[in-house]
């Protein structure tokens, strides 16, 4: 097993094209999880995934046996592209959906709901966001930087510490003081942050 892992895809493919069928098994075992996972991420149905996976490798085998594959060290991306095209084909073929015309008894809006915020809640949300931004601007520069990176840029504390050139503990400390200071500003100015 360990030795098969070390053999590059290119050599396995060369041997497979040369007639060594066992190389295909190694290639499938090596990449099946990534390829199947990719298909499953697009089509979360195991039976359909199995079909697409099978069709993908049938195409791969046919192309390899007709010597239509040009080895450039990109076997996995090539197989992924085939799988991706087959997923698109699957969705194209299943596009035909039953059509329902709206009647007095049947209204599409009985089944569909608008999950978005109401106008009032949206206004409140905008106001809250605006207030928070103003509070953040009041913070000292180092604390403001950490808050913006963490919440607006969605960076981890590890990434923040690398960018700002301080330790993770310093970044965490700055965040702690930022939160304490923000609370103080909120209390001092009687700001209500609710939605």
């Amino acid at each position: 097993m360990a030795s098969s892992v070390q053999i590059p895809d290119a050599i396995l493919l060369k041997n497979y094209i040369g007639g060594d069928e066992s190389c295909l098994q190694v290639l499938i075992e090596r990449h099946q999880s990534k390829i199947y996972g990719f298909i499953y991420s697009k089509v979360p149905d195991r039976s359909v995934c199995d079909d697409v996976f099978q069709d993908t490798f049938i195409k791969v085998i046919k192309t390899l046996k007709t010597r239509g594959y040009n080895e450039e060290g990109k076997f996995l991306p090539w197989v992924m592209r085939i799988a991706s095209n087959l997923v698109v084909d699957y969705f194209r073929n299943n596009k035909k959906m039953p059509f329902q015309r709206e009647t007095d008894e049947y209204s599409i809006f009985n089944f569909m709901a608008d999950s978005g915020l109401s106008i009032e809640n949206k206004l409140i949300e905008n106001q809250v966001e605006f207030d928070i931004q103003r509070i953040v601007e009041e913070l000292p520069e180092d604390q403001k930087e950490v808050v913006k990176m963490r919440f607006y840029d969605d960076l981890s504390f590890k990434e923040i510490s690398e960018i700002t050139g301080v330790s993770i503990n310093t970044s965490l400390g700055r965040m702690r003081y930022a939160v304490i200071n923000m609370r103080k500003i909120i209390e001092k100015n009687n700001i209500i942050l609710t939605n």
Partner: protein
Amino acid sequence: MAKLYSRRKKSKKEIKPNKEIVSFILSYSKALNIVKVNNFTFENVVN
């Protein structure tokens, strides 16, 4: 060593195709023989 406080990614369970599918693919590969003659391609599947 500094602790990592970043969110830990959820460990993904590896999903694999059905064993029968892999077995079919391997058998298909063994059975398939493709011959090219001039502009024609002949596919033979030997049972």
